């Protein structure tokens, strides 16, 4: 092997490269650029679709990812859920795997954590049992009656969410693709009770939306091809509108479904989540964007570094003459 400067450069111990990327992913958190993130039509279309929905509608938010892709998928699922909660759209939460149900719990805990700004205060199924017995199940009547009884929304909360009226945590079932298919006939047949053991058939939101035909949108957040199950078994069976939130790695594979009209829109990777957070802020739902937007500064710096690596690697490769000789570099670590 030719041991000129280029050869030595290409043989650089890769741990130095690891160190560079590590540093570049830390520094921007301390020196934020704050560059704007401009939403694209793929994301705006989902946002606008949800803007048209209200308490009389219902959506599915399906946590179809494992902890491995949590940093990408979680901010998307959180952003959509916060949007739906802010508009009092009933949300059915599902998960396509056992670990995905863990992510559902984790995401829900994040949105409803009383210590964070703009959280949603949960009123559990048993807490508002007496109101159900009085026949109060309408969303606005329920909130009015609840507050009239002296319940005060904490200052840092964005609103109340009533279990069974505003959300139902259905969770995981095996062979989830066939579960989607089953829900086209009946949600309660698939899920006799929710994750907390509450009877689903008694929930007002289920009585108003008994199957997927009566649901207005299914959003799936996925790091695998599992998101396409919602198209195959939901969209193609009964025309269920579907929106995707997928990892960046698979985002380019699924834009064909936007062009074919099979999905409403798609959030791709952290950028997609950041765009949704910006839209929530721009339309006045929340004061500031969340984690994904903050991460975009780091994404900037890391992309520039990787670009620099590509250019430098190519310069070294050609200037060192490695393209001519077909010499394989040895001794890499």
């Amino acid at each position, binding site marked *: 092997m030719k041991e000129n400067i280029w050869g030595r450069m290409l043989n650089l111990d890769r741990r130095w*490269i690891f160190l560079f990327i590590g540093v570049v992913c830390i520094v921007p958190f301390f020196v934020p650029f704050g560059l704007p993130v401009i939403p694209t039509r793929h994301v705006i279309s989902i946002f606008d679709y949800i803007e048209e929905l209200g308490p009389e509608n219902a959506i599915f938010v399906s946590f179809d990812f494992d902890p*491995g892709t949590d*940093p990408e998928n979680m901010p998307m699922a959180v952003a959509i859920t916060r949007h739906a909660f802010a508009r009092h759209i009933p949300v059915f939460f599902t998960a396509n795997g056992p670990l995905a149900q863990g992510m559902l719990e*984790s995401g829900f805990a994040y949105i409803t954590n009383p210590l964070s700004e703009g959280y949603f205060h949960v009123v559990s199924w048993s807490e508002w049992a007496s109101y159900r017995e009085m026949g109060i199940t309408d969303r606005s009547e329920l909130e009015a009656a609840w507050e009239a009884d002296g319940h005060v929304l904490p200052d840092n909360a964005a609103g109340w969410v009533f279990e069974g009226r505003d959300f139902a945590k259905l969770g995981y079932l095996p062979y989830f693709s066939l579960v989607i298919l089953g829900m086209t006939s009946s949600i309660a047949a698939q899920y006799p009770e929710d994750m907390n053991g509450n009877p689903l058939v008694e929930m007002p939101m289920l009585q108003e939306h008994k199957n997927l035909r009566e649901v207005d949108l299914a959003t799936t957040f996925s790091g695998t091809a599992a998101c396409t199950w919602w198209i195959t078994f939901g969209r193609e069976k009964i025309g269920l509108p579907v929106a995707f939130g997928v990892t960046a790695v698979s985002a380019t594979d699924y834009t064909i479904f936007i062009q074919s009209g099979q999905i409403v829109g798609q959030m791709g990777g952290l950028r997609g989540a950041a765009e949704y957070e910006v839209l929530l802020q721009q339309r006045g739902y929340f004061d500031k964007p969340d984690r994904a937007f903050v991460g975009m500064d780091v994404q900037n710096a890391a992309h520039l570094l990787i670009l620099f690596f590509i250019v430098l690697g190519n310069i070294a490769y050609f200037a060192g003459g490695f393209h001519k000789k077909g010499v394989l570099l040895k001794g890499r670590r």
Partner: protein
Amino acid sequence: MKRTVPLMIVLVGGVLMMIQYFIPHRISQSVFDSYTTWIPIIGAFALILGVGSLTRLHGHKVRHRAPNWPYSLAVILSIYLMPVFALLLPVSVGGGMNSPSVFDFAFMHILVPIQSTMFSLLAFYIASAAFRAFRAKSLLATVLLLTAVVVMIGQVPIGELLGSWFPKLGLWIIDFPNNAAKRAIGLGVGFGILATQLKIIFGVERNWLGGVGD
């Protein structure tokens, strides 16, 4: 009994379910509803296969004190202690599923960080690959490289600083040439899936029977 009956079950089940789609009659609908309720129950038992195999593999290592057997012990203990804490032990000793509990702790504070961090290691390797392997060796490789660069820059806010056309070009590439490529691949995969489904239903493809007796 060993091969013919399973193949017949596949054939009859497959054809019936296919016909069911085209005949939305009340009876076929109720058959379909029962079927979709049963499937998760049957599927749940498949878990025994996975747990059994893992236990056998790691149990063997522990019993024979194979190299690195303490790691196998960690696998076995964590597999069985999770259900013991979640389903059998009382809350007072860390049982139950809700926070705070051993079950919740192991998932949220051990599994999630481990899995997320393992996936994030790929960031380091892709940076290394960008430096060492991503070469403009030919015209086609150069096309791939340039597309990747435009898309990479177009996806981050700094692309906007270079000009609003930059992210637009990135999005155009995604929406048109990328879609053309992915659609062709998708159609190939789609036809492949359909062919495989038919081959399994009609017994042409039998690999799924496995080597468990003729």
